[in-house]
């Protein structure tokens, strides 16, 4: 029991310690692919330290919400990321690690951030919030539809049950799971504001979404928001790793060797995902904001199709 609790704690600390590194790897890989040298993969840690040391400047008309939002966003995102089973399935908080709960947590984080973007009343904050909410209003139904399709296949929305199902030999070669994975990747790209949807590396006013929303933040507040952005990316990567590729995750505490191998595999999967993301991002152009609903609509369609095909393969 104590070991399980400790494992849960380690998992929570691991994700927050690892999150900046993952973003660092994505940035470095992108830079190398564009034939630039790029900053070190540890640069995000240095950025965060620098921001934490700096003074935070507030607008005169900022309300309490503006100051509270970074802490709330980080708290929601961290809980969501820490719930996802990466080291073992049956942890004390395991029953809470439900797919819908995680989507709810990430959705609440987005809600708070969108409100904070509107709070000061600058036009950039407003446009960022409105675009973010537009993307969310199509992205979240797609995400929920995907979860329902997965739940149809695996019989539960609880992450540990789904992962146990994908780990078992009963899973076979299922097109429903493949379609769900594809749709999930599309939604994850949209939710994290990666390249075809939003470019996290620019401050070009016509196109930015997330950066516009947090434009008024500085100092430690900005550091908290950046950290939650890193955590969100890691959360989606580890969701994919633990739902679709759950190999090597032991069901419960099973000794140091098991733990080390689970940790190593988790690192490999997440960093591999980061490198693939970088490849995808350099090979595609950003799309117009008004095409985004089509992109996510395709993900929604994949989810529906996964559910329908599941019905065919089951009904004989």
């Amino acid at each position, binding site marked *: 029991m104590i070991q399980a609790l400790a494992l849960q704690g380690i998992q929570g600390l691991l994700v927050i310690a690892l999150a900046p590194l993952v973003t660092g790897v994505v940035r470095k890989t992108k830079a190398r692919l564009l034939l630039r040298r790029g900053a070190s993969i540890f640069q995000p840690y240095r950025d965060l330290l620098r921001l934490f040391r700096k003074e935070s400047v507030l607008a005169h008309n900022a309300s309490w919400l503006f100051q509270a939002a970074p802490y709330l966003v980080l708290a929601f995102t961290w809980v969501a990321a820490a719930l996802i089973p990466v080291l073992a399935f049956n942890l004390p908080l395991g029953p809470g690690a439900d797919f819908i709960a995680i989507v709810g947590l990430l959705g609440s984080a987005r809600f708070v951030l969108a409100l904070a973007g509107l709070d000061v009343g600058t036009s950039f904050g407003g446009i960022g919030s409105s675009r973010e909410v537009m993307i969310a209003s199509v992205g979240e139904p797609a995400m929920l539809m995907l979860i329902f399709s997965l739940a149809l296949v695996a019989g539960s929305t609880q992450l540990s049950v789904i992962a146990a199902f994908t780990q078992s030999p009963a899973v*076979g*070669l*299922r*097109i429903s799971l*493949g*379609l769900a994975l594809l749709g999930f990747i599309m939604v994850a790209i949209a939710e994290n504001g990666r390249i075809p949807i939003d470019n996290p590396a620019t401050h070009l006013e016509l196109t930015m979404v997330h950066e516009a929303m947090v434009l008024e933040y500085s100092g430690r507040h900005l550091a908290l928001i950046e950290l939650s952005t890193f955590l969100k990316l890691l959360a989606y990567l580890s969701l994919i790793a633990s739902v679709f590729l759950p190999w090597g995750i032991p069901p419960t505490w099973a000794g140091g060797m098991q733990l080390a191998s689970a940790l190593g595999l988790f690192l490999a999967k997440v960093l591999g995902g980061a490198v693939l993301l970088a490849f995808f991002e350099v090979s595609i152009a950003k799309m117009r904001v008004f095409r985004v*609903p*089509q992109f996510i*609509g*395709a993900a929604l*369609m*994949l989810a*529906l*199709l996964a559910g*329908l*095909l599941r*019905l*065919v*393969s089951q*009904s*004989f």
Partner: protein
Amino acid sequence: MSALVFDVSHLLAGSLVLMSFVLLYQDRLPSLINTFALQSLLLSLAIGWQAQAQGAPHLLVTAALAIVLKAILIPMVLRRLVRSLGIHRTIETVVGIGPAMLAGMALVALAMALMLRVTAAANIFAREDLAFALSVVLLGLLVMVTRRNAVSQVIGFMSLENGLVLAATGAKGMPMVVETSVAFSILIALIVIGIFLFRIRERFDTVDVAALDEFRGDRQ
């Protein structure tokens, strides 16, 4: 072992349906043609797998025909056609991609609901192949309905025929003659349509079929 055989054929037939959706989503002619070529390639893989699963070597001939004619020859001809008509940049859709996708989902649901009920007694390969094949056929019709460009309507027609071939190979004991004659009649259709397209363009300076409506007598 039989579970794996079934899973693979499910996977291949399912990806044919997926490719039909990609056809609906694409809005440029060159990528539409590429998607069609990919769908035909998947079709021939599906037929090849059926040949393996049913122990029917003559299906391999059908698979070879599908690769040579539909995955290589027809896309090549269409690409040349598009380039010589100078329309490789444009496409006009009648309804938006979103509603078309939703209509497609509804058609797939219809196909499954219908086929699974009608074919309750058939063996599982035939059953699910028929359900998928009907979806591909209906989606091909939908592509034809939602596009105004004659070339993309041709592609919708060809992908409809992919669905027919899938249905034919799923049903055990379909005579070889039928499949071959279908394959070649498609080829003839392509030639006829190709000539026809040039005639349409010569006459109306466009391959947008909406231009034909003006010449119909019964419209006010």
